[in-house]
């Protein structure tokens, strides 16, 4: 955690609104992206982001710095998402079209057609993983948390995170090796 963020946190703890606004502007996009990828809806992602930062401001005084602010923030976001998922009768998953749009719109290293096709397929397969593996992949790869940070955010052991990541990669690898037109999900 950078000293600048630490200073912002301390100032926000003391009630300085500008410091809180700066913290918000630094982290809200990551949290919104996290929710958007998991929920599949801009509205739901915005609502969950709002709830997450409400909890952040309410419990900011209890943040003691034992973990990074990013990890603590993702931990709160994870619990908000779990609560939201429990209240949902159905889990909306991202479609290939959404990922296709994202991949197409975003510039990146996948410039050739085959690479983009594989990326779209891989992202779609990630959404077909079971919930624990999916959340772990989202936090570790998409949100770029380390293994330790992912374990802290999920409240599990690092060995469990490693095991889930290994399982997910193996499954994705095997699914990617299968023919493209396969309709079913990952068992």
């Amino acid at each position: 955690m950078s000293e600048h963020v630490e200073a912002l946190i301390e100032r926000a703890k003391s009630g300085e609104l500008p410091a809180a606004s700066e913290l918000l502007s630094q982290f809200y996009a990551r949290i919104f992206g996290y929710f958007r990828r998991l929920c599949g809806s801009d509205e739901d992602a915005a609502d969950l982001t709002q709830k997450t930062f409400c909890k952040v401001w309410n419990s900011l005084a209890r943040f003691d710095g034992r973990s990074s602010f990013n990890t603590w923030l993702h931990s709160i976001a994870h619990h908000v998402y779990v609560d939201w998922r429990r209240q949902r009768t159905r889990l909306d998953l991202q479609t290939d079209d959404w990922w296709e749009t994202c991949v197409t719109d975003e510039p990146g290293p996948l410039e050739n057609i085959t690479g983009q096709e594989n990326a779209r397929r891989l992202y779609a397969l990630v959404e077909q993983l079971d919930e624990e593996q999916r959340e772990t992949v989202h936090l570790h790869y998409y949100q770029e948390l380390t293994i330790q940070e992912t374990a802290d955010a999920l409240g599990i052991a690092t060995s469990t995170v490693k095991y889930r990541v290994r399982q997910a990669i193996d499954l994705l690898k095997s699914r990617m090796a299968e023919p493209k037109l396969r309709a079913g999900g990952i068992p």
Partner: protein
Amino acid sequence: MNENTIETILRQSPRVRTPSGLLEKLTNDIQLPERSATTCPTHMETNRPSSNGLRRWLPALGFALWFLGCIVVFGIQANRIAELREQRHALESSKAASVQQALAADTLRATAEGELERLKQELADVQRLRAEMEQLRADAQELTTLKAQNQQLHEELRSQTAPPPKPEEDFFALATMRAERTRCVNSLKRLGLAARIWVNDKKGDFMPDRATLKAALPTIIMGRENPMHFEESLLFCPSDGVTSYEIVSPSSSEDRPETIFSRCPIHNIYGLCDGSVQQIDPKQFEMVKKDGVWILQKR
């Protein structure tokens, strides 16, 4: 596609565009804690430990309360169980006593019922005996009546019919007696003849006993060819068929022909050793033993 490629693609996932206006909305929603903490740091420092301490000890206090509650409930239940056990013991003892009383009552009732049954039986026997006695009395009375009637009828019959003839006047009875006596004489003659034939054959004395006579008679009388046709009725008086002739002087000799060999006790007919048969009057003759043999002698 290898694992490194997969991880690279995952790490380079596309960024998500944030909707416009979200940052402003979130900024407006910021609600930070009151600055009172900064204005009054000493108050916060003094209050926070007590609040934290209470919060820290809250689970332990809750557990302690729960444990105390459990102990109280356990004590109440133990007392209740003890009371129920005492009640159960009391009920069991009372039940055992009642069972014993019931058994004693059953035994007494069974004895009384047996006695009653026996008395009923005896009463029934007494009543039956009384009825039989009444019946017998009636029968006796009726018998007396019948006897009287019978007597009366006898008298009437006697007065109406003639008196039966006296035996000595009855012709048929006399003829029958005479014929039986004749047959008796004949039988004794045949016995005497058979004895004499036996004496001649044996060159000795008369038969020593009745069994020898009985054994010798079939061969002597019926011949050696068909002794089986011998009728043993020859040894009995024909008047009744059951009175056997007496062998008066067994093993007597021919040297004394007056010796009585056989006798019919019914007709007083005597067969002598000389083969003759004498029908005597008992008032005039009697049978006496003389020189070891029985003979007839005048009175």
